[in-house]
């Protein structure tokens, strides 16, 4: 066991307070360390937009756009999980709600884009892609703000 081990059965109030003090401020320190590259959200937005619009492209462009979209998402996620600190978008808490809202919005936009394009309103395709791109940019900022607030409140 380490030098600072304590296997005593009696934990004094002083020791408990000292331990709690030592971890106070951890959330703030983590917030300061989370650095997401500036290009993550724009690239992810672009990939998700491609995936939403793919049904409006002729073959083989539709297959190519799905492949590019998936590769891009994989690349962003791989880079994100190789940062010094990373937090899942689906972690428990208020941020999970933000993620679910975006997921539902994405599904609705995808379904609407598919349906209206099938009905002949082809202009919906680029519009849905642009909408998802902007929504992702906003979602990224909102998610980060909610997470930061949650971290600070947990102190």
């Amino acid at each position, binding site marked *: *066991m*380490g030098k*600072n*081990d*304590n*296997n005593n*059965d*009696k*934990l*004094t*109030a002083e020791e*408990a*307070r000292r*331990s*709690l003090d*030592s*971890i106070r401020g*951890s*959330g703030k*320190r*983590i917030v300061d*360390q*989370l650095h997401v590259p500036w290009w993550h959200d724009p690239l992810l937005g672009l990939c998700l937009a491609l995936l939403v619009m793919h049904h409006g492209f002729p073959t083989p462009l539709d297959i190519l756009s799905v492949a590019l979209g998936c590769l891009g998402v994989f690349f962003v996620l791989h880079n994100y*999980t*190789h940062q*010094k*600190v*990373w*937090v*899942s978008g689906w*972690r428990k808490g208020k941020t999970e709600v933000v993620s679910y809202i975006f997921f539902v919005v994405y599904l609705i936009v995808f379904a609407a884009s598919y349906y209206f394009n099938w009905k002949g309103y082809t202009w919906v395709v680029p519009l849905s892609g642009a909408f998802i791109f902007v929504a992702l940019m906003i979602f990224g900022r909102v998610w980060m703000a909610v997470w930061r607030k949650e*971290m600070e409140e*947990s102190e």
Partner: protein
Amino acid sequence: MSSGFDPIIHPLNRLQICALLAPIDEMEFSLIREELQVSDSVLSKQLRYLEEAGYIQPRKANQGGRQRTWLSLTKTGRKAFAGHVRALQEVAEQADLLGN
């Protein structure tokens, strides 16, 4: 003594490691070392205790030609850390009530 008290987590360095890992998914070894201001060997030793207890999980990957390690708290580790913090709070609150 509260049942949540965990002697594996209680040493200061290990408690701080758990506190850093609890609200996130993964943190790189070098950053934990900087945050704790300890040497590689001290941190490795503390991490080994936590890993043997099943509280943390390492992930190794090559990046920029060198091996890097990320650490995460396991489900068991999260539960144990939450229980331990609760136990510490209980002891401190009881003492406050008694005016100690």
